[in-house]
């Protein structure tokens, strides 16, 4: 009987440790969890590249915002940039896209956008204050903010078109086209 109790205790301990370890399986230890999901997006007032007038996040309340932290020295950011350009065009004035330049020289950003184009506003973030406010740990990182100003999604890594559609719905142009093809 003593032996049985001993075996059960060992089995119980092993299962407990497996449970504790399993809690961490599937998690990326380098990915910083977002504490902003479900909370109001921190407001900011940043200057757009090449401009002097500040741009405030709160000015866009009433429409969803896609806030993308990026830099020209970040290769995945460049892959993402084309998709964001197209998405900004497709969503038009239904969704506000904003880029926040992360630890990069404005001149380098200007040269990059001159070459690859820019369909949405790029903001300069001195001393990464806004990046710190959003808990940014690396780039690319994007935040999807709903029309009420609440953060609904944080994306660590490249943002995809599919994810944008799942959060924002189909872009108006695409929705119209699908409606037109569906109508007999």
């Amino acid at each position, binding site marked *: 009987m003593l032996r049985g109790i001993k075996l059960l205790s060992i089995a119980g301990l092993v299962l407990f440790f497996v449970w504790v370890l399993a809690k961490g399986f599937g998690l990326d230890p380098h990915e910083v969890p977002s504490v902003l999901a479900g909370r109001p997006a*921190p407001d900011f007032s940043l200057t757009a590249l090449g401009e002097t007038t500040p741009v405030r996040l709160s000015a866009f309340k009433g429409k969803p915002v896609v806030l993308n932290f990026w830099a020209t020295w970040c290769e995945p950011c460049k892959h993402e940039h084309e998709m964001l350009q197209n998405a900004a065009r497709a969503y038009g004035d239904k969704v506000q896209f904003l880029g926040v330049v992360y630890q990069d020289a404005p001149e380098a950003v200007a040269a990059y956008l001159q070459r690859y184009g820019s369909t949405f506003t790029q903001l300069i973030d001195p001393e990464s204050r806004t990046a710190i406010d959003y808990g940014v740990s690396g780039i690319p990182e994007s935040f999807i903010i709903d029309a009420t100003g609440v953060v609904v999604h944080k994306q660590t890594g490249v943002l995809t078109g599919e994810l944008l559609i799942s959060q924002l719905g189909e872009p108006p142009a695409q929705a119209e086209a699908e409606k037109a093809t569906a109508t007999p």
Partner: protein
Amino acid sequence: MKTLLLLIAFAVTPADEATREQQAQEIGRQLRCPVCQGMPISESPATMAQNMMARVRELLAEGKPPAEVTDYFVQRYGDWVLLKPSTQGFNLWVWILPPVVLVLAGLGVAMHLRRDVQHVAKQTASPNGIEEVNDGEDDALIRAVRREVEKS
């Protein structure tokens, strides 16, 4: 004259600066660098860490107490940003488990050693020099050997 007195009253002394820097370093040692994640922001060479330290200094200069400054970063990065895990929720296990496991392992080793000592004691106490195991283990071979030895 009044202006001069006011200026003197609100002047930041070198001692204040030194205290604030000490507080900043202390806070910096508690906060994890988001880039070099094993290092505190007070030691990490990453630009982000330096920006965070600058923010720590700004908040202290605004008169915020150290606990509030630390909480500022926890509100933005979560408990993850603390190099020393908090003692709340699931994190409590991080503090409880190691000493518990150590105590259990120690008890296990002690019990095992005690059993070994008891076996040796019984062996040396036997008049025939043969192990008289009386702990409930059936060993037919040992009993057979003992019978043979006792016959002779």
